[in-house]
């Protein structure tokens, strides 16, 4: 940790019994801010140890290392009563509804619990199998991505679980804070559905629909009615991200691209009118962009108060000054190798996130429970 700093959550102990991406991300947030996080792993380790990408030349999952750096690892057969005693000494137990061993372990335990599941612990689909894609399909996110007439595009990675873990952290922290403030004098048992956490991305759809508004079909890659221009476009050198919402942003964007012919047309001041005129506007925009440098447009556009973006590849991302100067990526050590991984996205200036990150070996802390 930052040697001079105090960690906000250093008095807490959090147990992860299940080791899914979602439980591990929730536990990671506690760990980043100083909590003592203990993974109780099966003998073969949590399943996330098998997830790519792997650290070059090793069989160590870099994703597992990112999610679990600085946590303690206890593994192997643990006698039930012994585990229960340990669980009772914890501030929070995280587990997955799919994990029957964890469900058994916590069944007789009196402690704060947070159950993270795909669809929730109750309801018509509570027993359904899930995955990140299932959540993105069911929440309505997936059907909006991609070209009309083609299969919608699946968002990659474990985004749904990261969002679920983040939301479960929020619920757990709020209830722990409620206890600290004297608003809750008993243990809590939170039911956190990854699906419901992900609905924050798509809630507006049903709300709009129930107010009689039509929901546009999938219109194409980087097409988001009623807003235009909004998307990612190729330039002479690199990709430019564009969002021009207000009339002034649109006029400035036209000026930036030397599209003077559109500036004084009042009809185009309204976003939906521009969207309906894509056939006219887009060829001119694309033609102008192909002659210009993305980086230069980005800086000139921002000077003109247009919210433009460089759209970096992963290789470029790690080299961007803005992110380097802020320490947005910091090293994790594992297997005597170090690699950059995302830092905490928020900085609490007096109680910063731990910045020295090391992955423990499986079972490295097997004697730890005896010491408590």
């Amino acid at each position, binding site marked *: 940790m930052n040697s001079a700093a105090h960690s*906000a959550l250093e*008095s807490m102990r959090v147990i992860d019994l299940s080791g899914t991406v979602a439980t591990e991300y929730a536990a990671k947030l506690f760990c980043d801010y100083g909590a003592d996080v203990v993974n109780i792993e099966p003998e073969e380790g949590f399943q996330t140890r098998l997830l790519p*990408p792997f650290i070059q030349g090793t069989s160590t999952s*870099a994703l597992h290392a990112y999610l679990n750096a600085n946590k303690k690892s206890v593994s192997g057969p643990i006698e039930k009563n012994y585990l229960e005693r340990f669980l009772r000494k914890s501030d929070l137990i995280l587990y997955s509804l799919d994990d029957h061993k964890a469900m058994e372990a916590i069944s007789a335990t009196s402690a704060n619990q947070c159950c993270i599941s795909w*669809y929730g612990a109750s*309801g018509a*689909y509570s027993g359904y199998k899930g*995955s990140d*894609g*299932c959540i993105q*399909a069911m929440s309505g996110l997936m*059907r909006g*991505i*991609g070209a009309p007439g083609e*299969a919608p*595009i*699946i968002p990659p990675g474990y985004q749904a679980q990261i969002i679920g873990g983040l939301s*479960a952290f*929020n619920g757990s922290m*709020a209830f722990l*804070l*409620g206890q*600290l403030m004297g*608003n*809750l004098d008993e243990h*809590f048992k*939170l039911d956190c559905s990854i699906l419901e956490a992900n609905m*924050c991305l798509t809630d507006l759809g*049903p*709300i709009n*629909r*129930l107010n009689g*508004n039509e*929901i546009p079909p999938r219109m194409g*890659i980087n097409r*988001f009615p009623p807003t235009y221009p909004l998307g990612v476009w190729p330039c002479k050198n690199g*990709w430019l*991200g564009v*969002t021009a*919402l207000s009339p002034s942003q649109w006029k400035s964007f036209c000026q930036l691209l030397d599209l003077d012919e559109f500036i004084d047309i009042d009809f185009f*001041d*309204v976003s939906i009118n521009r969207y309906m005129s894509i056939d006219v506007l887009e060829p001119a925009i694309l033609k102008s962009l192909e002659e210009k440098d993305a980086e230069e447009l980005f800086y000139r556009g*921002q000077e003109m108060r247009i*919210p433009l973006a460089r*759209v970096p*590849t*992963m290789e470029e*991302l*790690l080299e961007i000054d*803005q*992110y380097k100067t*802020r320490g*947005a*990526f910091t090293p994790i050590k594992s297997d005597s190798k170090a690699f950059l991984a995302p830092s905490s*996205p*928020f*900085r*609490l200036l*007096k*109680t910063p996130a731990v910045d020295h990150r090391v992955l423990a070996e499986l079972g490295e802390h097997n004697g730890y429970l005896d010491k408590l």
Partner: protein
Amino acid sequence: MLKGVRIVDLSMGWAGPLSTRNLADLGATVIKVESCTNFDWWRSWEATQEWIDDDGAEKALPFLYVNRNKLDITLDLESNEGRELLLKLVASTDAVVENFSGSVLPKLRLDYPELKKANPELIMLSMPAFGATGPWKDFRAYGSTVEQSSGLPHLVGHADQSPTMQHIAYGDSIGGLNGTAALLIALWHKRQTGEGQFIDLSQVECLFPLSAPGILSQSAAKETPPRSGHDQKIDCPHGVFPVQGDDRWIFIHIKTDQEWQIFSSLVDELSDLNDLTLVERQRMSDKLFASIADWSCQQDGQVLMKMLQQNGIAAATLNNSDDLIENEHFQSRGYLQWLERAYVGNQPHPSPPWRNGTETIKIKEPAPTLGQHNAEILKDWLGLNEAELTGLKKRGIIGNKPRL
């Protein structure tokens, strides 16, 4: 749960207001501060006099659902009187939240050093797109700009297509959830020590954990991650397949050889292939996908999802908004709660995503109208009298209607 926590919310749009809505849903008192001339742009970014005369500011659905359970006052922060009243309010609050670009609050002399003079124990969450430091700290951005700047589009879609955005404003929701997390950690610390602090949140950096497999592929595996469409390189089949109806689809994810054996026994064309290993399935994925699509397109999506789930296969229909309203699972979980609100009548609100035990957390109040709580807060909390309130109204420092 958070009764006794008080937040002053200067944020606008989606991200900041979502971060405070989560706390309001959990019982914190959140006071939203707007002004009649600088109102939350989530009410409209194309305001006209006609829109004002039609009470458009009170009818914006995105604003209504993200500001429920809050109080609302108006204060012209460009005036000395408005600024002084805000400082008084801040003096008795736990935290202030803002998501302006970097130069706005210093110009108003309302940045953290100024606010801290009014309340030395203050928490302040600042959540601009690129964070409070660095060469891009003052750059403008929306949630879409945040997604674009994070590089995430380079991981989404097919290699022969443009880098693909996932959402009109992906950065907003994710920034909002992270804002809630940051506030809760700081509130915990404050309750333990009495110490406030400044929180510097970058909405772009909030998306990096979602891109982690791609970032780590580059930094740890030393491989540039491709945009690989439906092939996520771990399990197969893992894809979207057509079902009966116009633009209707199902997502199917086979995770193990055992699941493959069950699944292939359900599809006539695949029944001879139930011994395929993962590597073999990946090698002939085009053929398998075509066979599955030929089979799935003859089936009703809901019926197929249920049949696959009963057989232990992860499958989900790609819902649209109507599906979400009618879905039996969402209904059984109490997804929507309805609240009566001035100007718009009975309105649906998505339930908070947590429950302690089995009960959904009840939403208590709909979104406030502009300046709805001016009298309550300025009189009861800050001690102003009726004449002073009238004076503020006359001078345009407070009000209930937007002005251009």
